[in-house]
């Protein structure tokens, strides 16, 4: 196997006495989609926060294409090419859909801003299906469209690794199919994705392999089918009696 694009080793972070993430290791190869699973409170979002630089790890390393990013501030990690969506969508609410998208490209790779940013931004909006709403205020969008917009903002930064935090949650079946296709098309363009996800249908159809966390630690890794059948994973989700 060639060197992974995103290489996370022994990542750990405590909050007081709580070990939110403990010795987590995972790899995401170029163009791979990796699922990060686990029951609520198992540390998945904390793991994303550590990788994206929103939180500083106590220990461990995060390497993007061999370059250490652990401990670097959020904005630097974003400039290096790790972009994320939030579990609870975070948009620039009173600004327009177009401005929200431009925000993703103004401070990262090409510093695109102003008039020259409009064509590429519109192209991205077209891709996520929001071109017709470019001049709407972000907060006036429906929930699903807000999620789409957040993804467009991430893509605007031309990320090498995309971190999706439950991006598929709350969609209806038709929207879910569209969203899955969208994520798959990103993979074909060579974007590597680490996704925290509870929608198992999506995990099965998208993820090349999965990492399962419980109580801050990795308890399983492998293909979606194999980890979902793993007795320890079942126990983590359902408790002892049902296993």
């Amino acid at each position, binding site marked *: 196997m060639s060197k992974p694009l995103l290489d996370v080793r022994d990542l750990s972070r405590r909050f007081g006495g709580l070990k939110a993430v403990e010795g987590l290791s995972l790899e995401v190869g170029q163009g791979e989609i990796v699922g990060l699973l686990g029951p609520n409170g198992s540390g998945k979002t904390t793991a994303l926060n550590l990788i*994206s630089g*929103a939180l500083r790890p106590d220990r461990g390393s995060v390497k993007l294409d061999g370059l250490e990013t652990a401990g670097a*501030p*959020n*904005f630097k990690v*974003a*400039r290096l090419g790790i*972009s*994320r969506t*939030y579990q609870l969508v*975070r*948009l*620039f*609410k*009173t*600004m327009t859909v177009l401005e929200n998208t*431009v*925000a*993703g490209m*103004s*401070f*990262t790779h090409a*510093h695109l*801003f*102003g008039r020259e940013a409009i064509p590429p931004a519109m192209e991205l909006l077209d891709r996520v299906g929001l071109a017709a709403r470019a001049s709407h205020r972000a907060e006036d969008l429906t929930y699903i469209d807000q999620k789409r917009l957040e993804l467009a*903002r991430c893509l605007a*930064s031309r990320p090498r690794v995309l971190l999706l935090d439950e991006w598929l949650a709350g969609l209806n079946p038709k929207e879910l199919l569209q969203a899955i296709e969208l994520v798959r098309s990103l993979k074909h363009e060579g974007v590597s994705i680490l996704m925290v996800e509870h929608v198992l249908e999506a995990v099965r159809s998208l993820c090349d392999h999965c990492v399962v966390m419980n109580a801050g630690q990795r308890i399983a890794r492998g293909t979606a089918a194999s980890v979902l059948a793993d007795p320890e994973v079942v126990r983590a989700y359902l408790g002892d009696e049902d296993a």
Partner: protein
Amino acid sequence: MKSRSTVFLIASLVAFIVLAFAPATGNDYTTSLLINLLLYANLATAWGIFCGTTRFISLATVAFFGVGCYSVAMLAEVLPWPLVLVVSALLGGALALLIGLCTLRLSGMYFVVFSFGIAELIRQLVTWYESKFVGSVGRYVFLETSPAQIYWQLLILLALLWALGAWLSKSRLGFALRLIGEDESAARSCGINTVGVRLAVLMGTAMFMSVAGAIVAPRWTYIEPSIAFNSLVSFQVVVMALLGGVAAFYGPVLGVVPLVLAFEVLTKYFPDHFSIVLGAIFLLIVYLLPRGLLGIGEKLWRKVK
């Protein structure tokens, strides 16, 4: 779009040129009133550029202003005037850096309270220093300047501030500032060094406030901490900026004109009830004009269209 901004630019330029002739045509009273107007126009515009966009409501305006006044009181006899202005700007910037570093993790109410506290702290520190080491709380400022000269300096300062505001509204830095005001963590994840942007703009606007304080200091001839660091100034600046509207850099000025005139009348006829009326005006603005005169103007404009 482009023609509109050109019209705005030309209108601003004409306004500044016309204003430059005001002292020659009016009397001493009008000049002193205009100085007041320009002083608050400077303070409120500078306040709006940082606080309006980032939504960090600062009550430290008078701290920067007072630092400017005191640079004059302490240095005017030793240094040439331009250098005094430079020193006051640097001191204001340094103070802003300190305040900025202390408030990196504060937002909302906590930032407001901190900024108010630090202004009061500085006032007390200066009082303590003056009485302990200088022996007298007040200082005299004897400088040969005419009201017209003060007026022109303030006008130039406002022109610079205006240019800064116009540039920010079109630049990447200004865009970053707006994004920070909307959602700071999302701004960070877009690659914005939010700490750096906040510090830089806070320092920049604070320098203008300090220089404004330095320019008007010679008017008083006698200053003491309770004059130079009068917290009422900070509150007035907030009220004016909010009345005008902070969505655009030229908004606060719209609030400065009516309120400076109103305060002029108030201090003349109701000197004892000044703070009560100020508070009432503040409440009315917040309840009736949440987005200021600028917001009303926009609403009307949309209806006309």
